[in-house]
């Protein structure tokens, strides 16, 4: 397939894959990594759902982790 364009943590990026798991792997994030969570278009995607989720052009992906906070 030709690539798609997604919004990843607020920045538009070109992706060669429509697989969420592959896109995350390109960002050095795999399903075994602790303390991380992902939402697509404002919906949580539990890590068990990463392999099956197909992205569409323009999807907004948020990858978050705990940081210092009050």
């Amino acid at each position, binding site marked *: 397939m030709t690539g798609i364009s997604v919004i990843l943590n607020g920045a538009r990026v070109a992706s060669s894959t429509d697989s969420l798991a592959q896109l995350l792997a390109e960002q050095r994030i795999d399903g075994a990594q602790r303390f991380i969570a992902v939402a697509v278009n404002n919906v*949580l995607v539990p890590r068990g759902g990463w392999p099956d989720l197909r992205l569409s052009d323009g999807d907004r992906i948020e990858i978050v982790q705990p940081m210092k906070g009050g």
Partner: protein
Amino acid sequence: MEDPFTLAGERFSSRLLMGSAGFPNQQTMLDALAGSGAEIVTVAIRRINLAAQREDTAALLDGRCRLLPNTAGCYTARDAVLTAQLAREALATNWIKLEVIGDRHTLYPDTEELLRAASDLVQAGFVVLPYCTDDPVTCRKLADLGCAAIMPLAAPIGSGMGLINRYNLELIRAGTGIPVIVDAGIGTASDAAIALELGCDAVLVNSAIAKARGPVLMAGAMRRAVEAGRLAWRAGRIPRLHHAEPSSPETGMIGT
């Protein structure tokens, strides 16, 4: 454990919760944590930095304390609920310190959105610990919704103003059976002691420790203040009088 602090069915020996933000460096934060005796530490949920080496606060603190994620920075119930869901996924905890901010200048909660988010999250099985105004009616509504505790502010976040309305905190304490955790505005150790003396169950302190000239010293001061305040509450203060009450015997004085 004598006089444990029970929160959502779990028992803690410390009544001091600590925030992890704003310390001069990571080691000072860890040393302050050790000095504070805190068993619960708050963290925020933020986008990871995809470009740079990632700091991993959760991995750093894991095993040293219970991590309590917050929804700081959220201005709508929708964002707060999603952040809570992300936090639950990232940290495998259904505990959430719920913040829904209404105003950037004061960081006061948006009570309408807060109540909506609290209701949704309680329904979804979260242990909801809402940061709220020191308004007894709001606190009662949050308790009625099924929140596990209420976290009224002492003063605006980071202001260090101390307990600006202790009478409200007393009313809140008297008006609810669930734990009251004073959150935000603590400036120094005596503020924390007074909160506990008023019968509040615990305090959450971040800036007053992290931004003190000596964060580790202040962490120790807070620990002792919270312990002292709690002991004073349990002991019961004497009534305030508008006249003197002699403490020495009034009989047997020379020349009588």
